[in-house]
């Protein structure tokens, strides 16, 4: 058996086609070099099935296999799913700490400390007003000074309490917005479920739905910033997605289970938001510490000024001044010049209320700092993992340019082979049998 005459043309053609496809893929990689979530692809080429040349056909009498060119086996998506899982875990953690840092920083700025206008300096001014009253127990101006200082102090405490409540309210609104029917969770989950269906169909048809896989991975990345995400890949190409500490999978095949109950343990932005306002959360703790400062202040001052309570209310939100200047007494006795009460109240400076407030400022500062530190660490870790992922899946233009040259040269050489074959056949067809003519 001999080799088919036109085989060489077919071999050259297969080279042309394969190199062309490789050039197309390279072009696609370059075009998507800045596309978010794009995974670089490469062409896997393999030799075409050879022609078997039976034994005794060659001079040595052995058989042989003649290569018939090249074919493209598949377009590989170069991606590491282990890095994806790590990236998503870290992304949830980072998102949680940045959310905490952001909300607590808002609370911190509501405190406006250290400053000359914060609650600390107003409390200090309140004690100073009592000290001035002790020096002039009969002075109406000094009594009015006490009432004014008390009013400024209670207003500031009320305002701070109000701001903390507003921040808690905003946190609740964010949670509702994210988890609501048109929220991001629902939105991402339904897109993932839809892609699951399309990917399943494509894979059944034997296709490689690379761009849909990229889209689904990108959506999973985004979902992981909302809460912890665990993905298990099913044999039919679909992804089953667990979300936070929800009891059922968020996405299973093409169906979405949402809404479900999640708690602070969900991680990510949602976990952090739920954690801040939970009964043991940082925002709740700030509110109750402020209540305790207000209560201590009112109780300690009222106990000494026993003719009329100076303050009414036992929480930061309800603390009010309950006296007029005329009701302020510097002394428990009837004598105009007594100042024992004023001295005793002025002596509360540095006492439990003030220490409680200083501790509260330390508490808010420490919680913001911890969240910031965690955020910084999380960012570094996420960047490292992101770079590892980029290193595997990202498009390198230098590499693509090199490939471009290599595939282009391959194409040119295949074309040259075709030319050579053509001229060989020309010799055969045009010039055979014309010897001597």
């Amino acid at each position, binding site marked *: 058996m001999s080799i088919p005459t036109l085989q060489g043309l077919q071999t050259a053609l297969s080279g042309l086609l394969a190199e062309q496809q490789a050039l197309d893929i390279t072009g696609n990689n370059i075009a998507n*070099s*800045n596309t978010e979530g794009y995974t670089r692809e490469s062409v896997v080429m393999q030799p075409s099935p050879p022609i078997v040349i039976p034994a005794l056909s060659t001079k040595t009498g052995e058989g042989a296999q003649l290569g018939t060119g090249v074919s493209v086996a598949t377009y590989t998506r170069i991606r590491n799913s282990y890095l994806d899982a790590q990236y998503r875990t870290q992304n949830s953690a980072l998102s949680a700490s940045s959310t905490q840092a952001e909300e607590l920083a808002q609370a*911190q*700025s509501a405190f406006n*400390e*250290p400053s000359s206008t914060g609650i*600390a*300096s107003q*409390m*200090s*001014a309140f*004690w*100073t007003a009592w*000290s*001035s009253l*002790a*020096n*002039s127990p*009969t*002075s109406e101006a000094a009594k009015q000074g006490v009432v004014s200082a008390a009013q400024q102090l209670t207003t500031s405490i009320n305002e701070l309490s109000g701001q903390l409540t507003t921040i808690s309210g905003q946190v609740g609104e964010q949670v509702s917005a994210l988890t609501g029917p048109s929220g991001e969770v629902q939105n991402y989950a339904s897109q993932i479920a839809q892609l699951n269906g399309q990917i399943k169909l494509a894979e059944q048809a034997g296709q490689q739905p690379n761009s849909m896989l990229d889209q689904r991975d990108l959506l999973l990345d985004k979902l992981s910033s909302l809460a912890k995400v665990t993905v298990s890949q099913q044999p039919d190409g679909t992804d089953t997605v667990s979300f936070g500490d929800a009891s059922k999978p968020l996405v299973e095949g093409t169906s979405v289970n949402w809404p479900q109950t999640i708690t602070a343990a969900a991680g990510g932005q949602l976990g952090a938001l739920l954690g801040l306002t939970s009964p043991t959360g940082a925002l709740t703790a700030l509110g109750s510490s402020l209540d305790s400062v207000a209560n201590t202040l009112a109780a300690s001052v009222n106990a000494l000024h026993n003719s009329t309570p100076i303050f009414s209310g036992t929480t930061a939100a309800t603390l009010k001044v309950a006296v007029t200047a005329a009701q302020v007494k510097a*002394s428990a*006795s009837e*004598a*105009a*010049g*007594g*100042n024992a009460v004023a*001295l005793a109240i*002025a*002596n509360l*400076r*540095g006492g439990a209320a*003030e220490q409680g*407030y*200083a*501790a509260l*400022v*330390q*508490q*808010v*500062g*420490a919680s*913001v*700092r911890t969240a*910031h530190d965690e955020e910084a660490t999380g960012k570094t870790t996420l*960047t490292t993992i*992101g*770079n590892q992922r*980029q*290193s*595997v899946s*990202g*498009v*390198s*233009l*230098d*590499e693509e*340019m*090199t490939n471009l*040259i290599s595939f282009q040269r391959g194409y040119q050489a295949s074309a040259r082979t075709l030319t050579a074959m053509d001229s060989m056949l020309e010799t055969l067809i045009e010039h055979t049998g014309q010897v001597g003519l």
Partner: protein
Amino acid sequence: MDQRITPAMITGSTVNDINSALTALERSSSELSSGKKILEPSDDPYGASQVIDLQSQLDGLSSFAANAKDGVSWATTSESAMQNISELMQRVRTVTVQASNGTYNQSDLNSLATEVTQIAETIKQDANVQYAGQYVFAGTKTTTPPYQQGETDTYAGNGETVSRAIGPGAAVTVSTNISTLLGNGAESKDGKLLDVLRTISQHLTEGTAESKAALTSTDLKGLEANIETLSQLQSVNGSTTDQLKLATSRIEALQGAISTTLSNTEDANLAETSIAFSNEQAAYTAALRAGATIVQESLLNFLH
């Protein structure tokens, strides 16, 4: 396997580096412009609570300093009134000794008696001295004059004390109980100054040998006992002034010390921060330059 480096990684890390350099720069710049290193509690949570504590201590010290100053004025007012009373008592002593010599006729004695009565009135006026609208010798009844002008010599104040706080829980009594010197007049027979003055005046008006004898014996003795009482009151009041002045200088020293601690806690070290600022500026420029150079390079630049 070597890590593949893609342009996206370089762009990403360049942006990160430029950002962190700029963040550090911004931080130093706010420290320099505000002069504070604690701009919010999270910069130094413990430091921030210290600042609150120290600031309140400083405010407290200012109050104590004001109290001490007020106390000194109070005591000085008392002191000058008692100094007047002391001089008047010396005059009465002279009058009493002169009258007993026997060279004066009854008309002279009568005018001396009038003088003594007037001195009693002046002394009561001195006892009614006010500081900042408050009667300093009335105990805590600071709105009531302790003595009325005229014949009634009853003390209208009370025995309570007025004090000024000069430290946490430390108060100094600034009032002087003048009724221990002046007493309640002739009717009470308490042997105090007003009683003695009224008696002297009466003895002068009577002019009898018996009365004259009483002038040099019981009256002079009573007067001298009261001079002794006054000098004791003056000495107590003087030591109060000293105590308050001492407290003032102690408070000033404390204010200095606490201000230093406060400054160490919250103020930026300008030298250190300026150097850090320059370094960060250099780092920022370097990050920008490196980014601009590296990101532009690619194989494309060399292919034709």
